[in-house]
């Protein structure tokens, strides 16, 4: 066995021992019946994968841990990972690069170190922070981006950023984005070629609407334990604690909510307020298991491998899996959305009543499944309508909230919508009914 570890100079080497890539090389050394003709089997593709390809992984959580391990074994050697979170005990049932002793440490750093220790010769560069901290030049250095995120907002941000990076004069500026997501026994993986195929924003209406309880139910007619918990967190917490922010990761805060919610439940004879439910409601906890993450992450990495090597066709463009009743999956091409505010490049036409106030329009923009903008600011090419910040501008534009849109914008006029959470602006063409 020892001779396989000795290189041509007679020294023992720890990486790229003979047959290290015995399995993957069977795919890279020769084409298959469905391989694209552009595939350059052999040393050239191996050299690109192992020495030149630079890949970014966003998220070092449930999907991220799996993605990092798979990429390292497949032969990617220059991997970067971004995550702003620290490790919590509830991560340990699936985030397999972390141990009990790591609780409290940054996920990106621990995960990167673990993979480098386990897989010799792989360089994983962690960044403990937000994706928004990085500029275009940073994102331009990668060949591929894989996302394993649990936040819609972060996905919209990276999607819009990569779409904006595309320069038609420079093919290198198009960065394929592979996105995965899971919930319980269900998950999906998709390939997005910014500006070419359907983007994340195009499919926004496929998201489940978050459960929201009307404030009057919470305040006056609670029926479910969830209503009592919302009462404690939405109404009682700010009343009692003033400006102190509710930290849903702080057990003392959860304990306080639980006791307040339990008292209210008792008063109304409602059963079922528990610690687990309280935490579930206020943190919007999504069930998560190792196996579903493994399936989705493997699928994402497999697409990354195929795109990086051209060794086989890649997913066009959406794979979804439901594992609750047998194994059901559906692979389909998600179509680009006309007037997608990110990759469509055109204005969104909306038709509203002449009676609508600016406030009503803002409410509609917040609630619409296609748009989903939190705290939007509105302006026309000539003047500002309403700005959420800075405070002086908010105050100056606040009187407009009660005005009719039709007083401020002509029929067929354009309104630009921006929000601090999104790196793009939405252009609306307003017509009146």
């Amino acid at each position: 066995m020892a001779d396989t570890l000795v290189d041509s100079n007679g020294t023992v080497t720890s990486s790229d021992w003979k047959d290290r890539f015995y399995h993957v090389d069977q795919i890279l050394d020769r084409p298959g019946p469905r391989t694209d003709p552009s595939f350059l089997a052999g040393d050239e593709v191996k050299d690109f994968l192992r020495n030149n390809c630079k890949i970014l992984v966003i998220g070092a959580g449930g999907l991220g841990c799996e993605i990092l391990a798979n990429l390292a074994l497949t032969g990617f050697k220059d991997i970067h990972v971004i995550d702003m979170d620290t490790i919590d005990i509830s991560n340990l049932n699936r985030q397999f690069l972390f141990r009990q002793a790591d609780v409290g440490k940054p996920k990106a750093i621990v995960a990167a170190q673990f993979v480098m220790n386990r897989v010799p010769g792989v360089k994983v560069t962690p960044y403990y922070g937000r994706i928004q901290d990085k500029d275009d030049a940073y994102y331009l250095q990668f060949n591929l981006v894989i996302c394993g995120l649990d936040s819609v907002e972060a996905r919209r941000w990276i999607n819009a950023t990569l779409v904006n990076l595309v320069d038609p004069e420079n093919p290198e500026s198009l960065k394929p984005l592979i996105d995965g997501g899971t919930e319980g026994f269900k998950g999906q993986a998709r390939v997005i070629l910014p500006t070419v195929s359907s983007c994340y924003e195009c499919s926004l209406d496929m998201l489940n609407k978050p459960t929201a309880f009307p404030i009057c139910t919470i305040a006056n007619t609670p029926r479910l334990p969830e209503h009592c918990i919302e009462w404690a967190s939405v109404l009682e917490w700010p009343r009692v604690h003033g400006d102190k922010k509710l930290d849903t990761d702080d057990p003392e805060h959860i304990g306080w909510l639980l006791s307040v919610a339990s008292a209210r439940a008792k008063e109304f004879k409602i059963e079922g307020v528990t610690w687990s439910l309280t935490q579930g409601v206020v943190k919007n906890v999504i069930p998560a298991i190792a196996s579903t993450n493994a399936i989705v992450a493997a699928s994402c990495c497999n697409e990354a491998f195929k795109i990086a090597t051209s060794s086989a066709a890649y997913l066009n463009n959406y794979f979804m899996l439901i594992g609750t009743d047998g194994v059901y999956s559906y692979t389909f091409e998600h179509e680009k959305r006309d007037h997608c505010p990110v990759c469509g490049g055109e204005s969104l036409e909306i038709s509203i009543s002449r009676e609508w106030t600016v406030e009503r329009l803002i409410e509609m923009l917040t609630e619409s499944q296609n748009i989903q903008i939190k705290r939007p600011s509105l302006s026309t090419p000539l003047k500002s309508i309403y700005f959420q910040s800075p405070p002086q501008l908010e105050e100056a534009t606040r009187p407009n909230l009660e005005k009719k849109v039709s007083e401020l914008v002509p029929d067929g006029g354009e309104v630009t919508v921006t929000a601090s959470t999104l790196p793009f602006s939405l252009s609306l063409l307003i017509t009146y009914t």
Partner: protein
Amino acid sequence: MTITATRSLEAQDIEGATTALQSQPDSKTRRYDRQLRLWAATGQAALESSRVLVISGSATSTAILKNLVLPGIGHFTILDHESVSPADAGNNFFLEGFKSIGKPRADEAVRLLSELNEGVEGKADHRTLESILESEPQWLTSFTLIIAHNLHSSILARLSSLLWKDHTYPALMVVRSTGFLAEFFIQFHEHTIIESHSETAPSLRIDKPFPALKEHALSLDYATMDPTEHGHIPYVVILVRALEEWKQSHEGNLPKTYEEKKQFKKGVLALKVKSDEENFDEAEAQSYRCFTETKVPSEISTLFDDSAISPESLRQDSSPFFHLLSALKEFTIQSESHTLPLTSTLPDMKSDTKSYIHLQRLYKIRAEEEKQAFTSYLRASVDDELIDSFVKNAHGLQVLRGRQWGAFDADKEALATALLTSPKELMIHLSLSALSAVNSRGVKPTLEALREEVQAIIGEGVVPPDELEHNIGELVRAPTAELPNMAAFLGGMIAQEAIKMITKQYIPVKGYCVIDLIETWTGVVGA
């Protein structure tokens, strides 16, 4: 340590219970929080008492085990006599790269997998499967589940026959993979499921209201009611009353034709005294509940014909599930409504607290009465918690009966049907069967050899679809490649099915589940 249950509150002193509730759950409950929301303490207990045997310490095998050790199975054994090769060290995350080369593969894998969860016991076994089948076959039957990856056909056939001999023997999961193609199959005789987590809700029986509900609905005086109260009558009550009145004027019939349904809905909306009464809008939207008679769902009444509950088969030592099923059948015959026992779970609806809680109480009391009636038909002693769970989930019960591994390949009729209905899936399955057979004989897997083998299975003269050439082409390209991504993908799929088998929750796949990671799809054939 055990999972903290928050259910047995009523038995405790309320003061003490309230304080206990408000302290943080123990660290084990916190660790498993995200999965307990899927399978609860019962599922977790089943996992913790399970013993899983995995045959071979391949990258796929360790990927499967990773996803079983993390959620906390009780015990696993890796049966593997090989030592780590340079190729293994390059594609298996549960080996330490070149440092592991030459060491026993099972030992290395068990050591590194065990780091994931101290609550799980792992064991390496260096014997060969051949020697166990010869000298100690009963050892295999001591496991809950056996998973075998890329075994040669001949030894696999021996293992599957042994485990098929008795219906109490463990289920066998057969996994095969090469390059971008893979499949797996679960061999089991019978698998019964109470908690299928069905997404259909049980009937509220609005068309067959129990006496207390009917009485309550008819006792309300809409005319003299306070307007706020009127705007908060739960839709269930509105519909029960509207339907009773409808039946009186329609010879006891439900609204049947499109016109009648429209008229019924109009009648519901006409009850509004103010246009913004959302409870009546909700009642109109829920009117469909009044248009079909509540009966035993056909999927459940089919189970009543199951041979396991015929008088000659049902014995004292039959499984509790079949005693419960037999009692359920009797209940649906004897009960006045000829339905499943009433659910005690009321969905949320527009209402004030008092009216909703009152209605919820009526359902709870009645559900408890019907549960008692159901229990009286039981001919064996069954744990009370199991009865509760059975009654609560009666609308989603499942009895699965499986086949022996390999039976499909010998069933010419089933193959002919699959050729028509799922040619793509069938060709992956048969290509992998052919590769295994060719390997078993020590023949080099060429296109010709694989083509001949597939032809022999489907029969001379049967023309295989074009997909065959694609698949055998891929197998010849990479005949022994265990790709890390495929291993991880299978690791997730197999663990997910193993969890469903062990917890008896959710519904496992029947037949051969095939995977194509070139076009990225999965399918099922030979169910």
